[in-house]
């Protein structure tokens, strides 16, 4: 009789280990998913040239267009709604939070040292650029691991095909 009990106990233990393994593997892939989505959003934002200033030969970022592009590409890549809630079919289950969105434009002195103490992020920009930090919760499949919340940070510099 005790062998049945042993079988059951071993089965439960193995299933728990398996569940933890699956969740941890997926949690790590979530980081890459979020990071690449964020990178593409920043890349789109950093392409928004201010045409009036460009006409005077100054490559600067059009701040309004940059913010709009960043949010649009973030939503498209992570499949989020207008209010950054996950759409049906999205990998994420809870809304994405934009913790910081800063545009470092031509009015600073370059190289510019950006630092955000609150989210522990520092970057040196040699040209105007955009910084964005997002927070998102990993959607757990099983309840065996603690909730994991990722803070993803990224930056992109103005991309101008005009040479230096």
């Amino acid at each position, binding site marked *: 009789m005790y062998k049945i009990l042993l*079988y059951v106990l071993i*089965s439960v233990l193995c299933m728990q280990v*398996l569940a933890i*393994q699956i969740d941890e593997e997926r949690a790590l*892939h979530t980081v*890459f*998913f979020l990071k690449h989505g964020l990178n593409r959003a920043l890349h789109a934002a950093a*392409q928004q040239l201010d045409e009036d200033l460009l006409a005077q030969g100054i490559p600067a970022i059009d701040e309004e267009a940059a913010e709009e592009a960043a949010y649009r590409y973030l939503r498209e890549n992570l499949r989020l709604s207008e209010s950054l809630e996950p759409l049906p079919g999205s990998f994420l289950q809870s809304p994405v939070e934009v913790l910081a969105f800063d545009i470092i434009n031509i009015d600073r002195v370059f190289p510019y040292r950006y630092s955000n103490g609150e989210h522990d992020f520092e970057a040196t920009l040699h040209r105007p650029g955009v910084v964005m930090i997002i927070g998102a919760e990993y959607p757990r499949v099983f309840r065996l691991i603690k909730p994991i919340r990722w803070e993803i940070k990224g930056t992109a510099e103005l*991309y101008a*095909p005009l040479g230096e």
Partner: protein
Amino acid sequence: MKQILVFVLFAGVLCWLMFAPIYKHVLIVRQAVLQKEADYLLEVGASGAYGYIDSRMIEQSRERLAGRGFDPSAVEYTVTTTSGEDGTNPQRPVPRGTGIRLEITYPYFRLFEIDRLIGITPPDPASRMSASGVKMSEYVPQAGL
């Protein structure tokens, strides 16, 4: 006698315990490889040198995926753009400011078949996993250079 009976009763669960982790791992890795492939194609395709994802790039991508154990003929690529124009034409690259959208899908095949052992009905083998992304093109026509 009783022990044999117990073993037979638990045989299905034991088999599942031994082999299900491998199938689940293959599933996660396939999904990750698809996502990496989509990221790579977008990185190259949206760069200033190309501005498109054409059939030649897709062919090379299929070869890379075949090297990772995928069935190259079952991988499907969908390239669209945010403005609605064709994103696969090397003669007319997508200009800077327009996004290239790529979706790669691959069938699950029978990866969930083993779950039958513990009484879970697997999803349809023809349903597909997918990886996608949108990246803004950097291509600028180099007129007169």
